[in-house]
């Protein structure tokens, strides 16, 4: 907190100028964004004082609660990349439970409602969050309808068409009037915005964003997709449940019709219109959705239609218009326009290099068949710390299969893989990353929209504890987790010579730079064995030379390195041992010069001599 910094630096006897400097520092830390936020929040709290009489404060309170639920959904839709279509279910669940518990103290009812919603969110997450976006959307859509049908089918629980009537709540001797609800709602929105912003910065946020933006890349780095997404779902549902539980005491009735698929859709609209990439985007979105109601009524009056159903239609049109603009929502569009996209100050790298020493990785008699086709027919490999082994061979010779067997992407039909004394065999990829075996992908993951630093930090955050609650309440441990992941990331970027690119967006990087970012992300997992899949693909001569320098320095750190590569210049440049594969079997093995002189190798490469100095064969 800036305030504490200021007061700590001021001790009796210090001069006025020092006090002023402390104040200036505090002001600098308290960014313009924070000022704006404080001003908007204060204005929102004071709004009921200046409200015109025809604007009902209970409508505003209602939308404040919806905004909190939308902000919670933004965590799933934005960094998580999960199009959840059942956020309204958690709001409804919170509302129904809190309404049914009308006889217990309100705080207890709220706690129960929040807990049940969180459990429901965790269940939805555990069941479906590992699926692709399409299937996740289908599943959550079915859940939204299922919940609505279940409410209709159980009139005893929800009181039939009229719903459950609840009394206005009382907390600590204060009656919950609409104005009190409004103030509560605004505070809840603030807590949700700050909390989800904190989650986005934390290790959990890095895991979510990595897996949401580039699933393949994040999974290869060992990010626990299911666990991270389930936690996000539970947290988001808990917030929505709390908002619903409070809102029901405002509405004074739990009306089953209010918690149908339309509510879930409106919350999604708010996220997308406002922009889920920003924690405050959904709030702006809800404000616009709220305005669509009166606007729709006005259109209804003008056209003389019997019912005013135009609000939903206008929301839909607004959504399509914002989506078609391709800006990612209003708030992100404004931020881009103002160039205010925070390029967070790069954290300082830790003083000491803390790379782990490499460990030997050995494969014996690896066999892999795909149906009739034998991709690998008994491969033996010995990878040693401080040495670079290159695996080369024509297309279809089994290089990629070998790499995937070592990294755990595929399970061998026969043979063993050993890391030092560990027998790996059928160990899945994520467990191998934990042991220190990490691979890069042939096509470097895009990490669209993330800074290079954050993309690399996905690797550093993959194995960090990522509890949703701690991240939400920004506990010291959670904050340190995010900070340390970025510090490790900066260190890894330094190792590949890309430190100055830390603040740039990955989509602005060249292909070769993106490949280096991928290698840095792999390094950020603190590996003992690094498996590289064609790191020089598409790189120019200078970039290949730089890549060679990077690999040699990693070898100098004692890392065990295997590189599958077509670029024979790089192979000749860095490899200690070259293994040539042809049709699934080892054709030759030895130093780069020995192998290049081997006539069998020349024959395998299209039956012609291979000039080693050539760029790309």
């Amino acid at each position: 907190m800036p305030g504490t910094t200021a007061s700590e630096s001021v001790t009796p006897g210090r001069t006025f100028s020092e006090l002023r400097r402390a104040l200036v520092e505090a002001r600098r830390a308290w960014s313009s964004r924070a000022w704006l936020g404080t001003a908007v929040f204060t204005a929102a709290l004071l709004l009921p004082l200046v409200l015109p009489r025809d604007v009902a404060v209970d409508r505003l309170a209602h939308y404040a609660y919806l905004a909190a639920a939308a902000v919670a959904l933004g965590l799933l839709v934005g960094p998580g990349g999960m199009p959840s279509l059942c956020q309204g279910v958690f709001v409804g669940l919170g509302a129904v439970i809190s309404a049914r518990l009308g006889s217990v103290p309100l705080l207890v009812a709220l706690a129960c409602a929040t807990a049940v919603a969180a459990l429901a969110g965790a269940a939805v997450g555990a069941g479906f969050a590992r699926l692709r976006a399409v299937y996740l959307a289908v599943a959550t859509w079915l859940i939204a309808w299922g919940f609505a049908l279940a409410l209709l089918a159980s009139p005893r629980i929800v009181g039939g068409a009229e719903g459950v009537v609840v009394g206005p709540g009382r907390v600590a001797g204060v009656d919950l009037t609409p104005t009190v609800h409004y103030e509560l709602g605004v505070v809840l929105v603030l807590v949700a915005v700050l909390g989800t912003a904190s989650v986005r910065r934390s290790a959990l946020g890095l895991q979510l964003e990595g897996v949401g933006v580039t699933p393949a890349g994040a999974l290869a780095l060992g990010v626990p997709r299911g666990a991270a997404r389930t936690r996000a779902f539970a947290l988001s549902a808990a917030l929505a449940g709390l908002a619903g539980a409070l809102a029901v005491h405002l509405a004074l009735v739990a009306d089953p019709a209010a918690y149908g698929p339309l509510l879930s859709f409106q919350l999604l609209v708010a996220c997308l219109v406002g922009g889920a990439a920003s924690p405050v985007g959904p709030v702006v979105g809800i404000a616009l959705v709220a305005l669509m109601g009166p606007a729709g009524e006005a259109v209804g009056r003008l056209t003389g239609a019997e019912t005013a159903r135009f609000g939903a239609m206008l929301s839909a049109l607004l959504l399509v218009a914002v989506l078609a603009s391709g800006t990612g929502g209003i708030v992100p569009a404004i931020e881009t326009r103002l160039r205010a996209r925070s390029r967070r100050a790069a954290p300082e790298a830790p003083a000491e290099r803390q790379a782990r020493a490499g460990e030997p990785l050995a494969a014996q008699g690896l066999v892999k068949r795909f149906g009739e086709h034998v991709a690998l027919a008994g491969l033996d490999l010995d990878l040693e710390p401080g040495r670079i082994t290159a695996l080369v061979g024509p297309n279809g010779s089994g290089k990629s299969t070998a790499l995937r067997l070592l990294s755990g992407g595929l399970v061998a039909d026969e043979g063993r893989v050993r890391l030092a004394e560990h027998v790996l065999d059928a160990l899945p990829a994520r467990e191998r990353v934990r042991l220190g075996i990490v691979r890069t992908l042939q096509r470097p993951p895009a990490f669209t929209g993330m800074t290079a630093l954050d993309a690399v930090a996905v690797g550093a955050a993959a194995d960090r504890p990522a509890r949703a609650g701690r991240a939400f309440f920004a506990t010291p441990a959670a904050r340190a987790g995010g900070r340390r992941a970025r510090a490790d990331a900066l260190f890894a970027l330094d190792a590949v010579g890309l430190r100055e690119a830390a603040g740039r967006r990955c989509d602005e990087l060249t292909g070769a730079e993106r490949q280096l970012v991928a290698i840095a992300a792999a390094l950020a997992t603190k590996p003992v064995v690094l498996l590289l899949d064609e790191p020089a693909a598409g790189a120019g001569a200078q970039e290949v030379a730089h890549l060679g320098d990077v690999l040699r320095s990693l070898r100098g750190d004692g890392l065990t390195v295997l590189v599958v590569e077509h670029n024979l210049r790089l192979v000749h440049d860095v490899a200690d041992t070259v293994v040539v594969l042809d049709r699934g079997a080892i054709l030759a093995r030895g130093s780069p010069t020995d192998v290049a002189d081997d006539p069998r190798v020349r024959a395998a490469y299209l039956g012609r001599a291979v000039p080693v100095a050539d760029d790309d064969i």
Partner: protein
Amino acid sequence: MSVALQVAITGLAAGGVYGLVAVGYSLVFRLTGTIAFAFGDLIGLGVFATLLVAVGTGPVSQTSVGGARYALAVLCGLLICVAVGVAGYLLVVEPFLLRGSTVGWIAGTLALAFALRAVLQSVFPREAYVFPDPIPFERLGTDGFVEIGGASIQIRAFYVIAVAIGLALGAVWLLERTRIGRGLRAIAEDADGARLVGVPVDLFVPIAFGLVGAIAALAAIVASPSAPVTVETWPLVGVKGLAAAAVARFVLPWPALVAGLGLGVAEAAVAEVHVGSLQPGAGWSALLPLGLALAVLAARPPDDARDDGE
């Protein structure tokens, strides 16, 4: 016996429509990788457009429509269905597909769904409407009902089942035997390859989008006179059809069709369960297709193989 027969007839009549919707969802999914969330509302549009042309928005009795006007109404309904389907695809699906934005087409088709529903609700504000029936079924049997093995069954139901299953078989025939169908399946297998061998992909996909909606809408129009219709009916039918498609893992054409029929019958069976004088399944039966679909989705392996980037 009589209960079983009643369940089978009710179930097949509903399940035929679910099956057609499931075939539609699966075809669109295979063609474009998208889920047309507006499917049910598109069917509703077809049904209510037909109603509008046939009798307007006022209350009607069942036989107050002439054959010619009814035929014209059905034609108009189907044309509107195709037109909105094609336009919807071009406006809210294709732009986002080209941009690779999954959340874009999901939200876009949902927006189309709720916009269609809002339009229908403002034109047809009454709780429920009676749909005209050009064929005088109520003159057959006892007020349109027939006694079979102790069960009293609406004669209309046989007609609805025949039409729904006929349309479903027609759709399967279209997919398996005709040039258009082979073209569509070629696109579903490999869009780029199909384009290379001269299948007009950019033309076929939007047409398929509109056509599957129209076929399902025709079945819905035929089924509509059996009971009062509401604007809320068809979105729910769309969701159940989506559930059937998910149960069949979006496999064309037989699994989707059979899943639809099966879920229709299962739903009717659950609704018929009697415990003493209570019918506990009545309200909950609609949840059965959804629950089964969720179970199938939850049992899917994680989508790693596709994500491996190889």
